[in-house]
């Protein structure tokens, strides 16, 4: 039996509407069950699991390095953030020091990931609310970022570029030129989007005062990321619990007190600006040096040394066939992903495969606030509220 809403005894019978899982504005396969009084939503409940593929079980059957490829496929709009979270968790287990050059490149690429993830959010959110053209512009800029990803990792989306101990390979020589080009042109484009939306009366009508959540409610429901900051809570993991050298970058954390769809829109727009600032700083200050940690038993040797050094060859063989053994222990590593707090809870029993790897997916937690946001509102607002919490179902269902 699929999930449905039971009738409350003593109340009049109302229409039950099943919205999704195949619905263009549910951003994937989300199913909502709505009880309607005319066009007003009285009660709502969500039904997920259509994309459940058992990533957490698969992690237990793969070595730590193999696990990275799975992380791309969870939040498929921000693969590099997932790579980073996973690698940082394993590195914390191993107590591994990452060279600054690798950290800088990681920061640069995850911030680009944030921008391209927000661009997809903006485009789809706008098209849901009837502003068609924004999507086309957003995907144009996203394409340039995906080109940069393809340059460094060979893949547009399933990058798997960050590895335990550093990066997979040295980026090509002229990649920074592409980044520079993007940094130069993007502020103008961002203005273009804001001209289309920020003062647009239809946009304002559809977003201001819709899906309101107070700061306390947002905290109680476990919201994170822009959804939390849109309710006036100043919490950004990059600032409060810095990882991967974020403390060395200068950026602001935008918050808005209103807690409605429009506030979250403004927060994300400003976040793109701030991410761009970080990208610029990272680009100008990339230090020289190695891109992999000095830990031959964990990090794969480069091709050159494999052909000249017997130790490197043996290490390579050991890492590929068996994997490395982190000490027994458990860590919970969080990062500020585009959608909020992405946590990896990694438990090691000393073997080359994780004993347990749990993913705290931001979308999964953020989705809980959806029924609260839409109850008592019109059906048309449901679409606005789904868009504003910015869920990726691949990550919700894992």
């Amino acid at each position, binding site marked *: *039996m*699929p*999930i449905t809403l039971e009738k409350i005894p003593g109340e009049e019978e109302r229409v039950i509407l099943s919205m999704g899982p195949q619905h263009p504005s549910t951003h994937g396969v989300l199913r909502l069950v709505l009880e309607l009084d005319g066009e007003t939503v009285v009660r709502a409940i969500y039904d*997920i*699991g259509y994309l*459940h593929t*058992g990533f*957490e*079980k*698969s992690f*237990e*059957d793969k070595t730590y390095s193999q696990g990275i490829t799975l992380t791309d496929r969870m939040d498929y709009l921000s693969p590099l953030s997932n790579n980073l979270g996973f690698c940082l968790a394993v590195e*914390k*287990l191993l*107590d591994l020091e990452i060279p600054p050059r690798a950290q800088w490149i990681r920061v640069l690429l995850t911030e680009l990931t944030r921008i391209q993830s927000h661009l997809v959010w903006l485009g789809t959110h706008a098209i849901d609310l009837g502003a068609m053209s924004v999507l086309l512009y957003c995907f144009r800029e996203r394409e340039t970022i995906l080109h940069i990803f393809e340059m460094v990792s060979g893949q547009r989306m399933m990058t798997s570029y960050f590895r335990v101990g550093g990066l997979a390979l040295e980026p090509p020589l002229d990649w920074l030129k592409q980044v520079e080009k993007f940094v130069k042109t993007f502020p103008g484009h961002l203005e273009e989007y804001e001209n289309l939306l920020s003062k647009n009366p239809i946009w304002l009508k559809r977003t201001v005062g819709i899906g309101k959540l107070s700061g306390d409610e947002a*905290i*109680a*429901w*476990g919201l994170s990321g822009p959804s939390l900051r849109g309710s006036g*809570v100043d*919490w950004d993991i990059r600032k*409060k*619990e810095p990882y991967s050298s974020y403390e060395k970058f200068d950026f602001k954390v935008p918050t808005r007190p209103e807690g409605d769809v429009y506030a979250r829109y403004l927060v994300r727009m400003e976040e793109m600006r701030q991410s761009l600032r970080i990208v610029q700083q990272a680009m100008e200050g990339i230090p020289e040096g190695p891109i992999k940690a000095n830990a031959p038993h964990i990090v794969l040797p480069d091709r050159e040394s494999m052909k000249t050094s017997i130790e490197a060859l043996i290490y390579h063989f050991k890492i590929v066939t068996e994997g490395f053994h982190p000490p027994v*222990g*458990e*860590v*919970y590593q*969080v990062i500020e992903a585009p959608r909020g*707090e992405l*946590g990896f*809870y990694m*438990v090691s029993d000393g073997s080359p495969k994780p*004993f*347990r790897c*749990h993913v*705290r997916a931001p979308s*999964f*937690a953020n*989705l*809980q606030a959806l029924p609260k946001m839409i109850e008592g509102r019109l059906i048309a607002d449901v679409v606005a509220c789904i868009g504003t919490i910015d869920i990726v179902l691949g990550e919700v*269902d*894992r």
Partner: protein
Amino acid sequence: MPSNLESNLALKKLREFAPQGIEEAREFRGEVTIYIPPEWLIRVSEFLRDEPRLAFKYLSDITALDLYPNEPRFEVVYHLLSLQNAERLRLKVRAGGDDPCVDSLVPVYPAANAFEREVFDLFGIQFAGHPYLRRILMPEDWEGYPLRKDYPTEGYR
């Protein structure tokens, strides 16, 4: 060695509040884990949330570990966050037997709702007092609990 354990404010306050509410405390890579007796879970989490110096108002995550074939077999893991102090704390509750069950944290943290459903779905741990304890990721008529260690990764069950 356990320097963080002695200086940890939450642990100190918790010892003052209820010494019998702590079974054990551990530290690894600077992260503090406190084992709580099952009957103390609600009271301890309420205390951690409401004590003004701690303010663990944010529930980050709930998950579980299957320590099969050990008994008690399961550990339910809670990750709390204090926005005020930028501090995290891990609570653990052991659950075992044929019908593992712990108290639901939904009355304390509304966010626990979906996380507990997920743990119930994938581990088969019951949460007493949960308002809507149903499978969330797996199909409703699924047999078995996939994240248990005696559940195979591939092939037929």
